[in-house]
């Protein structure tokens, strides 16, 4: 999987690259409009992450070029502009997703995976861990061959954690993933706690290993080893 990251802020760029390399992606980058334009013209990517405020031009133009150049490429816009109008214009022009700064890296990671699964055939529709299998297409979870009855929120938490497997995912980021801004943190943490507890129970009842680890005070981790 080859990714292109176009971001002018060097620290943020390094951070994103470091995080995504650990996931096994091949990462290339550009730090301004011109470089981004060149890379788009000369190479093919599976997914591009584009900042909007770039030296030398508007990132939205690059999104347009990317889409015109390759209709299959996944495009995620990352921007400090956060109005609905900005989002709509970004999505209309061809972006698949829009993340506002400051975002959680785990969220970015989950969204890249979701887009790549939709866009390319190389990503499986199923996630397997031991006895556990998650079918993303049908939104079904099986443990030891038995179908689990999960609520929508439980399913979403499980998939979010699985997409960030072997990483600590903070409660904040889970809350934001599930509800956006509509939740008070203190309350949502209780809620997440209750959901994870149920999820664990359902997994355990079906003989599934304990994948969900609690990182005290911080969040959770989907541990496979």
């Amino acid at each position: 999987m080859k990714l292109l990251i176009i971001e002018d802020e060097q620290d943020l760029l390094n951070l994103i690259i470091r995080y995504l390399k650990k996931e096994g992606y091949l990462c290339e980058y550009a730090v301004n409009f011109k470089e981004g334009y060149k890379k788009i013209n000369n190479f093919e990517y599976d997914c591009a992450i584009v900042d909007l405020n770039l030296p030398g031009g508007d990132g939205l133009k690059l999104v347009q070029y990317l889409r015109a150049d390759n209709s299959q490429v996944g495009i995620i816009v990352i921007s400090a502009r956060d109005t609905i109008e900005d989002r709509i214009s970004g999505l209309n022009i061809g972006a698949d997703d829009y993340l506002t700064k400051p975002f959680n890296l785990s969220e970015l990671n989950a969204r890249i995976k979701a887009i790549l699964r939709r866009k390319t055939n190389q990503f499986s529709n199923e996630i397997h861990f031991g006895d556990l299998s998650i079918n993303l297409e049908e939104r079904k979870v099986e443990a030891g061959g038995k179908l689990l009855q999960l609520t929508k929120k439980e399913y979403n938490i499980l998939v979010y954690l699985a997409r960030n497997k072997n990483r600590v995912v903070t409660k904040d980021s889970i809350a934001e993933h599930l509800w956006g801004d509509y939740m008070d943190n203190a309350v949502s943490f209780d809620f997440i706690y209750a959901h994870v507890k149920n999820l664990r129970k359902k997994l355990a009842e079906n003989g599934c290993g304990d994948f969900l680890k609690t990182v005290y005070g911080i969040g959770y981790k989907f541990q496979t080893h």
Partner: protein
Amino acid sequence: MKKLRQFYTHPLFFASLLALLLIWYFLPVDLYFTAILIVFIPLIVLTLGLHIVTNRRIQLIRNQLYQIFQTLEEFDIDIPQKMNFMESPFPIFNELNEYLVELIERIRHNYLSNKQFTQNASHELQTPLAIIKGNAEMLLQSPNFKEKEIEALAIILQNTNRLSKLNSTLILLSKIEHHRFPDAEQVSFIQKTDEILNHFKDLIRMQKLVVEKNYEKDFVIEMSSTLAEILITNLIQNAIRHNQGDNINITIGNHYFQTMNKGKKLKTTPESLFNRFKRVSNNEESLGLGLSIVKRICTLYNLEVSYTIGKDMHVLKVMKL
């Protein structure tokens, strides 16, 4: 009029009057009497004339001043329109107008660049915040950290989130103040409220709250749909957050929207909670900006918002003026 005045005030006019007086002084009485008549009648007429003329001029000056007041009253610092004073027949007023226009433009310029600065600064803050947040998140993945270190990281992350929320709320406030939500449509408060309550479904269930909906009639206003959503969301969130009872009440009528919840006694006046960063509690979740955003949106659309407390019930009401 002007010529007449010039004639009466001319020194020659006075000189001839004086000559006439002197001549008639040495003549017999009835002639003397006639002379007095001859002199005083024009004088009375002259005084009356002058009085009328001066009055008219005062009236004219007053009108000119009123016009300036009126123009100044229409002035809104956020609307980038040049002040348009009427041309006056008095040069002094034109000078005053010119001075006012210049002064206002200077103030507006300073005000706008100040605002622009706040907005840009808030925007620019988002990227460093993203970097801090991301790096803390990276550190979390380190397997060598002990509990104390992880705790410190958790605090960094929590406060970065708080800061970024605060920051984006300030950006929102500044956008509302900048009139950056120009699109207006007919917004049905019943429809919007139901949509928003749907978002709060989990939160409401979690706190075992009962939401009493009391829809008398729909409240429909022409406004930005985004701002309507923010307005209603903030009011409902406020009612849920500070609720001390088992239920909250939402009433919508022909010309108003109202939330009601049981709450604590306030130490300050309810009205002061519309000010920025004014908070009732040390509630970590509350930024102290929710109600000031509500107030701002209401001002923008000429709505009146009031906060009243009866017994221990807190009532927030938004209504059409």
